[in-house]
């Protein structure tokens, strides 16, 4: 009898053991640091693998009269050249609206649009050959800015509008009014691993595509349509990405499609790896926005009426511009109750890259507009912007007034008051604000600024049907566990979190749980890993699968020991039944012999979501995540140079599944969002050519940009909604935290005009933009 030992284990486990909620390293951390984590380009090539490169348009808008590919074909190492004519099926990689060709066919719509595929014996030879095409363009008028497109009535989608209350009346009656304009630039995802797809023909006309993608199912569809195959002939696999950030949600499709078209054409394996410059020239980015706004408010700064018209650069095709604009509309409120609002969003069709998903997905663009307005209200009233923000927060009482969003969803989980109060106190906001003002009075050149900004972020796909996920959990007879789910790993730690959920459910050590590559042959019809829902959806699906296995094992052991299956517990690598603790491995081995199914599928669909896209009302979100940050900067008014002196951030990850990973997401999002609002500038020349197409010219934050004093904490909270272990999403919402950096800079600039003038600061707040704002303020 070994019962005493087991009893002791049971007692220990009651105190010690819980896998979920622990800070665990990323499941691939060891492989990352060893250099043995394989990305698509690291996978040993199949014999005979050829390499592809894309021939890109040099014109923003032109008919292709003729294209001479002779020099391309004759270039060293070239095996084949494919054009649109060589696509057996649909020449399309548009995710929603089919306006996005894989290869331009007779018409090019932006500088960088792929026109043909070169297949050669090496990556280098393919790239060299791709430049040798002689194209006869008939140039057409190009719309290079959203404003030009609006004036030409050129949109990828009809405008959308969300109205609540009576803006006009409320505005007319408001004691104070303001109006203004704001430009906020786009942002390149700059995943460190560029776009890549490796297509390997399989028997019977099938195709295996190894792809760096957030959306294997959509890659499967694109490839199947392009090759005129049924989906079951196409398998797409992604073990991990070297970053995605939204850029590999739909925009990996062009690369997957082109690689598959080429592989189909040469009847052999073809790898298409984008050179960084090609990647940045071809793919879409975060949408830039242009706002015109009006607001009416009272003496306290409380907004009585708000109206905003958002014009965004969609690029040449729709891609995800519709959903992005929808989210921008739904995030205009941020953390504030807006009784009477009128929000319009327009997606301008321009002859530039087709803009797409990027962490936040329109949310940051929607929310920054209201923050800009509040910042101005505060300055107009001579009040602390934090007080004005507080005056506008959604109500404290979930059943009370001021608690419904403009789109009609009640806010039932509001913690912004408590969270902001905690941050205000922990960061000594008031004292530091006073100190900054004292400093500025004495310092003629350098000026300090400080700002606290809040975030409320709705979590779920706006598109209801996408809120579903599947998983497979296998328990092998040795007690080891393999998990497969529909989410993709891009560094955010979804695999680690899902493994923790499964380990917790099965009551085994995390080391026993392995997560495998995302594979369309395992989980069908997956949603993209996007909208911060990766762990929410796939965690629930995997938990569902593991729970079914537990139930079967519980049935078995309960029967054997005369217990109730409901009382059987899985903890500490043991199955606990009737006071006994049986080793998990032993129970599993027994179950196999007893012919109990040791694997299971799992499924999850987020409940209670609805959305009416015509009225723009419903319950698009499962819950809201909250956060806030305080940033303090010092600005050089002679040049516009600045430095972030300190940043404090507090984020509501609910019951965090993995605090270390969540903290990492918050820190990473903070710096990434700061890049968007400061150093990262997309610049097209007069011909419509993007000139910032490499890290030499496009500047994401580097190590010195991380402030020396950077304090990030998670806010203690449990999700009111029944999310996976009451956790909350963490991917996107913290990207809005560095609004505090932007508004701290604006605060510093305002000091030049004794805080009486609103600096017309635009984003990105490059040194030049800051300098221009300083100039405008000093000139009054």
């Amino acid at each position: 009898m070994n019962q005493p030992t087991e009893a002791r284990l049971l007692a220990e486990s009651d105190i010690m053991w819980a896998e979920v909620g622990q800070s665990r390293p990323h499941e691939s951390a060891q492989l990352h640091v060893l250099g043995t984590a394989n990305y698509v380009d690291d996978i040993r090539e199949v014999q005979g693998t050829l390499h592809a490169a894309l021939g890109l348009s040099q014109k923003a808008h032109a008919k292709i009269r003729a294209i001479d590919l002779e020099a391309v074909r004759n270039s060293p190492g070239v095996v084949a050249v494919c054009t649109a004519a060589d696509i057996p099926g649909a020449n399309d990689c548009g995710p929603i609206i089919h306006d996005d060709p894989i290869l331009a066919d007779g018409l090019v719509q932006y500088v960088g649009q792929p026109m043909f595929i070169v297949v050669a014996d090496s990556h280098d030879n393919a790239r060299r050959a791709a430049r040798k095409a002689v194209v006869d363009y008939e140039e057409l008028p190009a719309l290079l800015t959203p404003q030009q497109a609006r004036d030409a009535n050129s949109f990828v989608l009809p405008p959308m509008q969300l109205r609540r209350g009576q803006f006009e009346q409320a505005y007319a009656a408001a004691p104070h009014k303001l109006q203004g304009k704001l430009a906020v630039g786009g942002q390149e995802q700059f995943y460190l691993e560029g776009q890549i797809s490796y297509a390997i023909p399989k028997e019977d006309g099938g195709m295996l595509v190894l792809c760096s993608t957030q959306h294997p199912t959509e890659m499967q569809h694109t490839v199947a349509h392009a090759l005129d195959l049924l989906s079951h002939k196409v398998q797409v696999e992604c073990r991990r990405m070297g970053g995605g950030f939204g850029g590999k949600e739909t925009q990996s499709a062009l690369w997957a499609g082109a690689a598959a078209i080429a592989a189909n054409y040469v009847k052999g394996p073809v790898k298409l790896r984008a050179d960084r410059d090609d990647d940045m020239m071809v793919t879409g980015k975060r949408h830039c926005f242009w706002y015109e706004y009006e607001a009416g408010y009272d003496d306290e700064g409380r907004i009585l009426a708000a109206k905003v018209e958002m014009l965004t650069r969609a690029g040449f095709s729709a891609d995800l511009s519709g959903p992005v604009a929808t989210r921008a509309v739904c995030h205009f409120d941020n953390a504030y109750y807006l009784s009477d609002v009128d929000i319009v969003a327009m997606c301008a069709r321009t002859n530039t890259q087709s803009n797409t998903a990027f962490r936040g997905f329109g949310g940051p663009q929607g929310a920054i507009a209201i923050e800009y307005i509040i910042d101005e209200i505060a300055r107009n009233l001579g009040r602390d912007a934090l007080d004005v923000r507080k005056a506008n927060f959604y109500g404290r009482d979930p059943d009370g007034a001021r608690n419904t969003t403009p789109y009609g969803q009640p806010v039932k989980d509001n913690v912004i008051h408590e969270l902001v109060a905690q941050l205000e106190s922990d960061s000594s906001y008031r004292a530091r604000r006073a100190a900054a003002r004292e400093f500025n009075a004495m310092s003629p050149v350098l000026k300090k600024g400080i700002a606290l900004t809040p975030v409320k972020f709705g979590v779920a796909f706006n598109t209801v049907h996408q809120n579903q996920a599947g998983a497979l959990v296998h328990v092998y007879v040795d007690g080891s566990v393999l998990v497969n789910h529909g989410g993709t790993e891009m560094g955010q730690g979804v695999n680690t979190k899902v493994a923790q959920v499964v380990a917790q459910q099965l009551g085994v050590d995390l080391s026993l749980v392995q997560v495998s590559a995302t594979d369309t042959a395992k989980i069908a019809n997956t949603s993209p890993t996007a909208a911060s829902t990766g762990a929410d959806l796939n965690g629930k699906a995997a938990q569902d699968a593991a729970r079914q296995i537990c139930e079967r094992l519980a049935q078995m052991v309960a029967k054997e020991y005369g217990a109730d299956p409901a009382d059987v517990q899985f903890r500490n690598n043991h199955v606990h039944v009737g006071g006994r603790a049986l080793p998990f491995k032993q129970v599993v081995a027994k179950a196999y012999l007893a012919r109990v199914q040791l694997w299971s599928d799992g499924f999850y669909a987020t409940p209670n979501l609805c959305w009416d896209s015509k009225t723009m009302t419903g319950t698009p979100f499962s819950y809201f995540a909250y956060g806030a940050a305080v940033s303090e900067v010092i600005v050089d008014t002679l040049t516009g140079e600045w430095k972030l002196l300190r940043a404090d951030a507090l984020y509501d990850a609910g019951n965090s599944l993995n605090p270390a990973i969540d903290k990492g997401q918050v820190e990473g999002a903070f710096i990434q969002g700061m890049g968007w609002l400061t150093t990262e500038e997309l610049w097209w020349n007069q011909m419509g050519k993007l000139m910032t197409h490499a890290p030499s010219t496009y500047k994401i934050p580097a190590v010195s940009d991380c402030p020396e004093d950077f304090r990030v904490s998670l806010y203690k909270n449990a999700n009111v909604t029944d999310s996976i272990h009451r956790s909350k999403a963490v991917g996107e919402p913290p990207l809005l935290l560095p609004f505090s950096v932007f508004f701290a800079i604006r605060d510093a600039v305002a000091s030049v005009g004794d805080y009486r003038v609103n600096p017309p600061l635009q984003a990105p707040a490059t040194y030049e933009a800051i300098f221009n704002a300083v100039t405008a303020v000093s000139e009054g």
Partner: protein
Amino acid sequence: MSDPIRFMYKGAVHSVNESAPTQTILQHLREDLHCTGTKEGCAEGDCGACTVVVAELQGGEVQMKAVNACIQFLPTLDGKALFTVEDLQQPDGGLHPVQQALVDCHGSQCGFCTPGIAMSLWGLYLKQQTCGTTPCRRDINDALSGNLCRCTGYRPIIEAAARMGEFDAPEFDRAGLLASLAPLQRDAMFIYAAGESRFYAPRTLSQLLEIRADLPEARLLAGSTDVGLWVTKQMRILGDIIYLGAVPELRAITERDDMLEIGAGVTLTDAFDALCRHYGPELDEMRQRFASLPIRNAGTLGGNVANGSPIGDSMPWLIALGSQVVLHGARGRRVLALEDFYLDYQKKDLHADEIVESVRVPLPLAGRQFRTYKLAKRFDQDISAVCAAFCIELDTDVVRDVRIAFGGMAAIPKRAARAEAVLRGAIWSEAVLRQAKDALAEDYAPLSDMRASSAYRMQAAQNLLHRFWLETRPEHAMPAVLVNAFAWQ
């Protein structure tokens, strides 16, 4: 006739005969050796995913430096040792302290930049092991200035760098490496040929001048931090290459006659080490912001000067300091004031048989004040929108002499003749400053591009002169911490 490229790799001599002379170290690692730990993120030396450490013998010692494998041509490794992320794992299979610290601090998310970061940190770790010090934030920033990470926001990586010293690792065997490198050193010129082009690495200055005279069309190569991109980005065919990196005379730094003579083959890292011994406070920020550590470890001051880009970051301050460039050709040496070397955009006073042999930088003079400022979009590793340099000598409050030079303001690095004329002999006052600022508008007509608009370049240039005045005015001069946000800690 072709010598094989021989270098130490994974503890053994690795020989290459077939690769094109412009194949990069990264391509060789990934495509030929299937050693894929080292990543390509940009192929232009700007992201650091490809960072490796190269060891070479210099002055009888082993020097180990992190460089970007994506823009270094393979033949430049001849006689050296190459270390990649695969070399870090300990003999017992355990992680190196650098790796363990990254894991413990949650320093990787997507992991794609991680091998490069591990190698940059290893470079720092080796330095730390030698000096026995713990790196401060400034050291860490320097070491990681060339590594982009898009996921973490750097905080956990910085923590890993600060904590890696807590873990022990066996002392790196420099003596063993020295012993294995010694037999790879060549006395005769290294000539590597593959395909239609040749790679020459002369061993002496006279060999270099001889081969230069014989092959006036050949491309001179030093740090490869610009020429590398001609291949990886512009897909240019370079033809024959003459490599300056193995000529000891060009790697010398000598101090004499109140000047520092820096050979054209001296890396920017070494050049700044020498310069900052004299111009520490004045050049410190420029040193941090000049490209990144891996670029400074490979690139040379001579290369920056010879390249003569209008946005090169060394020429403005070299010109302001009154530096000279020494040219050497078949007919002997010529010494030019650096500003006279630049004739027009990408046009230099350099004959086909000549090379830039060295740069002569005057040492500090009592009574002369010098500052240089760089304006770019980002602090680390960015190309200047405007680079300004000012040198002034005052007699109490009268300007005895002044030299002002700018980069990013004209087709060449150029002195501000009119502004200087306004100042020379005038009182260093706010009124005169205003006139000098106005004169700058006549000295330059800068372009608008993705780095900055013409208007901003001009106004910022004028304001940098203003900053210089604030720092050096006869009364109430302001310390940097009051006029420069980056001086603020």
